[in-house]
C-alpha cells in the first residue's frame, strides 16, 4: 500500500485520531531503529583505524618497488 492510497483516509480522520496516528508511527520508527543493533550480539569492527606505523611500512614497500 502506498502513501498516496492511505493519505485520503488519514486526512479524513478526526484531529484526535491524527494525533494518535502520529504517536503510533513515531513509536514504530523508534522501535525499528532500536532493533538495528541488537543486545547480546557480536558486531565485529575490523578496521585497523590507527595503524599509522603499518601504513608507513606499506608506503615504504611501494616506494621500494618503484625504485627497483
Amino acid at each position: 500500500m502506498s502513501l498516496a492510497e492511505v493519505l485520503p483516509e488519514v486526512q479524513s480522520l478526526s484531529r484526535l485520531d491524527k494525533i494518535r496516528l502520529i504517536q503510533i508511527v513515531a513509536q514504530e520508527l523508534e522501535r525499528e531503529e532500536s532493533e538495528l543493533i541488537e543486545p547480546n550480539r557480536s558486531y565485529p569492527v575490523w578496521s585497523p583505524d590507527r595503524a599509522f606505523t603499518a601504513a608507513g611500512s606499506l608506503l615504504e614497500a611501494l616506494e621500494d618497488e618503484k625504485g627497483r
Partner: protein
Amino acid sequence: MTSPAQSFPYVPRDPSLENAGLAPMLPLTLTGDRSVATSGLVDSGATVNILPYAVEVQLGLDWDQQTRSVELSGNLASVEARVVVLSAVVGSFPPVRLAFAWARTDAVPVILGQVNFFLGFDVCFFRSRGLFEVRPKS
C-alpha cells in the same frame, strides 16, 4: 583524462540484518604467483589494506618469505601481519599495485583502506540506493 566511474552494488554480509546487513564489497582480482578473484570491504575508516591469511596462500605466497612485519590496531591488534605488494584489477580499470598487511588470521575480510586503495581510487557511497561508485584517481 578522468575515467568514468563504475558502479557496484552493496551485498548482503549478514542476511539476518536485512538492509542493515549490506556492505560495499568491491570485486577485484589479485595476482601473486597465481590470480584469485575475491572481493574487498571498501572501508574508509581503515588505515591500511588487509588480506586474510588464506587468500594469500591461494595466491601462492609464502609467509616466511615476507620479511617486513607490521603492527595492526583495532580488532586486529593481536594479529601478526606482514607486508605484501600485489597487482590488483578492479572492474575494467587498468591494473594497479596495492600494498597489503597480510594478517595471520582468516577471521577478517579483505579490507581496502586508506593506504593505498583510497590513495588510488575515488569512491562515492550511495547507501540509500544500495550502490557505490569507484574510479581511479584523476
